[in-house]
């Protein structure tokens, strides 16, 4: 019997870059990608603007930015030469699932030209495509370094547009630390655990060391060590397990840009789109969320994301923390593990968000590897949002527990 995915999708066109082979005039991998996609569009009559899913070996963010499109499905599986066959498989699954209708699998690799100009490899996610990316070329001269060097520009624009202050955002750091002091596994749990651990005040946040004005170090996440994993199964298998299931009611993804140079609105991320997709899939809305786990790389990230997720009006995300709603005992607990600001952040924080969401919704939060019962919000619904790059890419989940 054919599998469920059988004939779920068809390949409807195939094209190449304008010139291939041993090119006299060196080309970048990016150019080969873009020419092939343009030719594919002309062949099929499907406008580039209609592409919804982009599959490539690491290039998808760079490609979408270069094309000026906002995808609903981003895949960068890069496991060697068979990646493209896998991309077809993944695209078929995404189409079958109704997430997208039009997918493009793209390849560009200047194996010959790279001997003269470099740049054969995978795009540098979050920074543009490395030395041969025009976005990187036109920003490399200007002293942008760590993530804070970019994100601070968003905070300044938010302050300009909405009249917010650094003190407003400092409340996010303070409240998130309050959560961490309830979680023995949080890096900043206590003074005994870390010299800078334990409770902090808004004044301490304001007066700590300046990293990128207007962000002091306590507006920034830590860089620590973390490992984690989650398992997903079919409902049937889940029913036979001893652990409580937490259901993925909704999921969505999107991106605004790859390089912050291309961020259209510095006070908004693509989380509004990824959340819209996730809420729609779940048949639920922000007012039904009893818990939120939001990537808080910086206080401004948490504030803007809360706005994008519909948890607060535009320009007022910080009030969730400042007015105590997000705090222990508040009406909408946020980042109950202590966040990237005070629990743990290793560089990519998406996994700790999932683990804490599972623990809270399964009634096993927090304190330990085994998920012993501890500090518990009793939430039954949770919105989870990860942000990647320089406020670039977003993935949103709506998770729910069994009634």
């Amino acid at each position, binding site marked *: 019997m054919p599998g469920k995915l059988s004939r779920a999708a068809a390949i409807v066109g195939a094209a190449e870059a304008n010139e291939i082979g041993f090119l006299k005039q060196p080309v970048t991998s990016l*150019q080969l990608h873009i020419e092939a996609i343009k030719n594919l569009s002309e062949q099929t009559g499907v406008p580039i603007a209609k592409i919804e899913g982009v599959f490539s070996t690491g290039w998808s963010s760079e490609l979408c930015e270069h094309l*000026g499109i906002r995808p609903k499905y981003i895949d960068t599986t890069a496991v060697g030469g068979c990646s493209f066959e896998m991309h077809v498989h993944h695209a078929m699954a995404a189409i079958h699932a109704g997430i997208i209708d039009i997918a493009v699998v793209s390849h560009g690799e200047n194996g010959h030209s790279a001997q003269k100009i470099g740049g054969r490899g995978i795009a540098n996610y979050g920074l543009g495509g490395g030395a041969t990316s*025009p*976005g990187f070329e036109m920003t490399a001269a200007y002293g942008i370094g760590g993530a804070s060097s970019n994100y601070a520009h968003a905070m300044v624009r938010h302050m300009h547009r909405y009249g917010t202050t650094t003190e407003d955002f400092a409340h996010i750091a303070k409240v998130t630390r309050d959560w961490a002091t309830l979680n023995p596994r949080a890096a900043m749990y206590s003074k005994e655990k870390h010299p800078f651990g334990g409770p902090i005040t808004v004044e301490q946040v304001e007066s700590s060391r300046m990293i*990128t004005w*207007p962000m002091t170090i306590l507006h920034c996440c830590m860089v620590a060590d973390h490992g984690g994993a989650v398992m997903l199964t079919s409902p049937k298998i889940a029913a036979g397990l001893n652990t409580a299931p937490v259901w993925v009611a909704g999921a969505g993804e999107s991106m605004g840009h790859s390089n*912050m140079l291309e961020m259209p609105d510095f006070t908004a991320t693509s989380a509004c789109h990824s959340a819209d997709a996730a809420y729609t899939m779940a048949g639920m809305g922000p007012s039904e969320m009893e818990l939120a786990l939001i990537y808080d790389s910086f206080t401004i990230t948490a504030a803007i994301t809360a706005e994008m997720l519909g948890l607060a009006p535009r320009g007022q995300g910080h009030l969730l923390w400042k007015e105590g709603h997000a705090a222990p005992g508040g009406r909408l607990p946020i980042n109950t593990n202590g966040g990237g600001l005070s629990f743990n952040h290793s560089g990519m924080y998406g996994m700790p968000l999932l683990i804490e969401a599972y623990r809270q919704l399964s009634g096993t939060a927090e304190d330990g590897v085994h998920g012993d019962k501890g500090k518990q919000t009793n939430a039954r619904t949770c919105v989870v949002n990860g942000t990647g790059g320089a406020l670039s890419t977003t993935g949103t989940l709506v998770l729910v527990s069994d009634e």
Partner: protein
Amino acid sequence: MSYKLPIPAKGTHTQPFWDGTKAGQLMLPRCTDCNRVHWYPRFICPFCHSSDLEWIQASGEGTIHTYAVQHMAFGAWAKEAPYVTAYIDLKEGDRMLTVLRGVDPLRPQDIKIGAAVTVEFEPADDDTHIPFWRLVGE
């Protein structure tokens, strides 16, 4: 030359821009189909997906869209800290990153979003003059 800061590696399609910087001209890519300027230089118009692109000489005028002060920097930039980075809204459209000149990094509150800036070019090596933006009148 004594330029000590990072010099970008050049792409295969950006030569008109770098040639312009040596002539003291800000060259920007524009789509001949929809007439919109985009920045950074592309292989395709990001607005209408036309491949018919041209270079125009821009005014070199813009305004501050947003900014930040880099107190913690890396590599050659570390000893320049603190310095002000800014995104500049170009008069012709779209946006450019810069290290802003003519401002006091220790008085960031005095820098105004929307303030007028002009471009200038600093020789970095034989092939490269790097554009920087400066507050008008400073």
